[in-house]
């Protein structure tokens, strides 16, 4: 059984086509794996019957030679994607009992290509967090452990997705990234995570956090698997007015193309005070690997980098406060009865939203309120343009950028931090790409002194995911990242 779990998606697809394994066998192995690693709390709902029915259909398709791109591949879905007839909660009490009567475009695309749904994955409540600790279902746990054997966070908000793929309880998983929610957990769990260009994957049917920043993307264990999954997820969708008509490149081919002749920028502003020395060393190592593979490395400047986080913490809460106005106890989810209609709204929302979500709603309401709109929201939108212009400028001279994915490795669950701003710093390297709408990818690149994974981030031009896959492919080969987490299915306990 553990052999099946070791196959990459590309290998599994080949084995399925060759009939050396069946979709039902592969799916059964993953259902067992998910049950075995249940203590990681990375699934909030397992749907084994659903999965086996989908696997049986995949086996029929395979028998007829009508296999889709992901035919028979078992994957997990972040609980932010609406799935017809299967509870979707955004890991919030306020969506308790909500069963969508419709399917998100991204998941519909995956099923159309033959993928099999194992269940719904844990995440931060409404994707607001960087440690998966704001989930109403409790924290998801990172399958990696340091020598002290304490529980570590998988990162967030897509913590369950990263944890499940690393623990081999899903072969791949969907995530969403508003400020780093795919790339940061991918780095913490030693897996590959891509935030595509804004507009590449449809936002339709995904529970909204901050609509001008939200983007769905794939989590996988290899770079080639990631390209395969992106091909299935991405599409133009008339139901999302920001969805792009620009055709996705041949990203599968890009993975093996190498970086010879590419010009790769290293932004000097990404050197931060108090950065983990292992992260600095790995970043340097990454530059050396790319140079050895024939790329030209150049130092570049993105002067407004330090303003990205404060800009994000105006724009994202502002959009969230507006998006989350829909949870009113009337149309779906939780209702707490109270005297008047207004009292019912206030009681429902106070009981249904967790602390971090309430804090962001209040900040967002404040920065949009009369008298403060210009000082905060409009100011942030102007700085956002300057941040985007920084990238536009460097991309006239380089093809991609190489940065660390996170300032440190995964930290302990329950780490007490009184200052919310300190938690925000997890996203310091990832947030700029969301503000500028750029594709960004986190690739596992090594272990730190405690044996925990660290990731490098590759950023690219809008709609140029292919360059990211070229760089990531080289980094993957150079790293030869074969380490596996202790708490994986088929591994030690």
């Amino acid at each position, binding site marked *: 059984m553990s052999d099946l779990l070791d196959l990459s998606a590309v290998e599994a697809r080949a084995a399925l086509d060759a009939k050396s394994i069946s979709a039902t066998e592969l799916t059964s192995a993953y259902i067992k794996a998910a049950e075995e690693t249940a203590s990681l709390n990375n699934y909030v709902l397992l749907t084994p019957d659903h999965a086996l029915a989908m696997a049986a259909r995949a086996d029929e398709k395979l028998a007829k030679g009508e296999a889709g791109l992901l035919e028979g591949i078992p994957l997990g879905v972040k609980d932010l994607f609406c799935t017809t007839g299967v509870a979707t909660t955004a890991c919030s009490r306020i969506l308790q009992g909500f069963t969508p009567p419709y399917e998100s475009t991204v998941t519909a695309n995956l099923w159309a290509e033959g993928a099999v749904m194992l269940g719904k994955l844990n995440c931060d409540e409404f994707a607001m967090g960087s440690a998966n600790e704001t989930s109403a279902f409790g924290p998801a746990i990172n399958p990696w452990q340091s020598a002290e054997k304490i529980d570590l966070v998988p990162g967030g908000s897509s913590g369950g997705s990263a944890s499940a793929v690393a623990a081999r309880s899903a072969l791949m998983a969907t995530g969403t990234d508003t400020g780093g929610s795919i790339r940061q957990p991918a780095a913490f769990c030693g897996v590959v995570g891509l935030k595509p260009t804004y507009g590449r994957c449809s936002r339709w049917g995904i529970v909204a956090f901050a609509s*001008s920043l939200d983007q769905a993307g794939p989590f996988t264990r290899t770079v080639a698997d990631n390209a395969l999954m992106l091909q299935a997820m991405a599409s133009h969708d008339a139901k999302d007015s920001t969805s792009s008509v620009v055709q996705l490149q041949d990203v599968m081919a890009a993975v093996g193309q190498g970086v010879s002749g590419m010009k790769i920028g290293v932004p000097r502003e990404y050197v931060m005070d108090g950065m983990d020395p292992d992260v600095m060393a790995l970043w340097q190592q990454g530059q050396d690997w790319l140079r050895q593979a024939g790329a030209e490395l150049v130092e570049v400047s993105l002067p407004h980098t330090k303003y990205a986080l*404060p800009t994000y913490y105006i724009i994202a809460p502002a959009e969230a406060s507006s998006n989350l106005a829909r949870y009113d106890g009337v149309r779906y989810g939780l209702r707490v009865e109270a005297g008047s209609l207004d009292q019912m709204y*206030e009681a429902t929302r106070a009981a249904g939203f967790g602390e971090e979500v309430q804090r962001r709603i209040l900040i967002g309401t*404040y920065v949009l309120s009369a008298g403060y709109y210009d000082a905060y929201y409009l100011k*942030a939108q102007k700085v956002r343009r300057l941040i985007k212009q920084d990238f536009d400028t460097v991309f006239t001279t380089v093809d991609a950028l190489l940065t660390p994915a996170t300032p440190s490795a995964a930290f302990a669950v329950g780490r007490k931090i009184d200052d919310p701003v300190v938690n925000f710093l997890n996203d310091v390297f990832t947030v700029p790409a969301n503000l500028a709408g750029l594709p960004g990818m986190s690739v596992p690149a090594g272990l730190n002194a405690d044996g925990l994974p660290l990731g490098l981030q590759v950023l690219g031009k809008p709609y140029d995911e292919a360059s990211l896959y070229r760089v990531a492919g080289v980094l993957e080969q150079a790293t030869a990242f074969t380490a596996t987490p202790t708490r994986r299915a088929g591994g030690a306990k």
Partner: protein
Amino acid sequence: MSVDKTTVAKIARLARLNVPEDRLEPVANELNGILDWIAELNEVPTDNVEPLASVTGHALPMRDDVVTDGDCVDRVLANAPEGASGFFVVPKVVE
């Protein structure tokens, strides 16, 4: 621009969030911490900068103004905490 208890009560009301009296002060302190940090943006000169609302660079697509959905009252109401006769039910708003 510092936030006090009264301001928290006002924005909580605008956001339809019940924040209990004894939480107003702590919430004000948390928000001030975040707002002080955000104030860093004031050092960036932005006088002649246009605000950026969309990164896509293309205009929103238009479509024909026709009905593309509907006739699914049951599905719309399926998740409602309370419904009756094809309507959502809310607490009484008219005396």
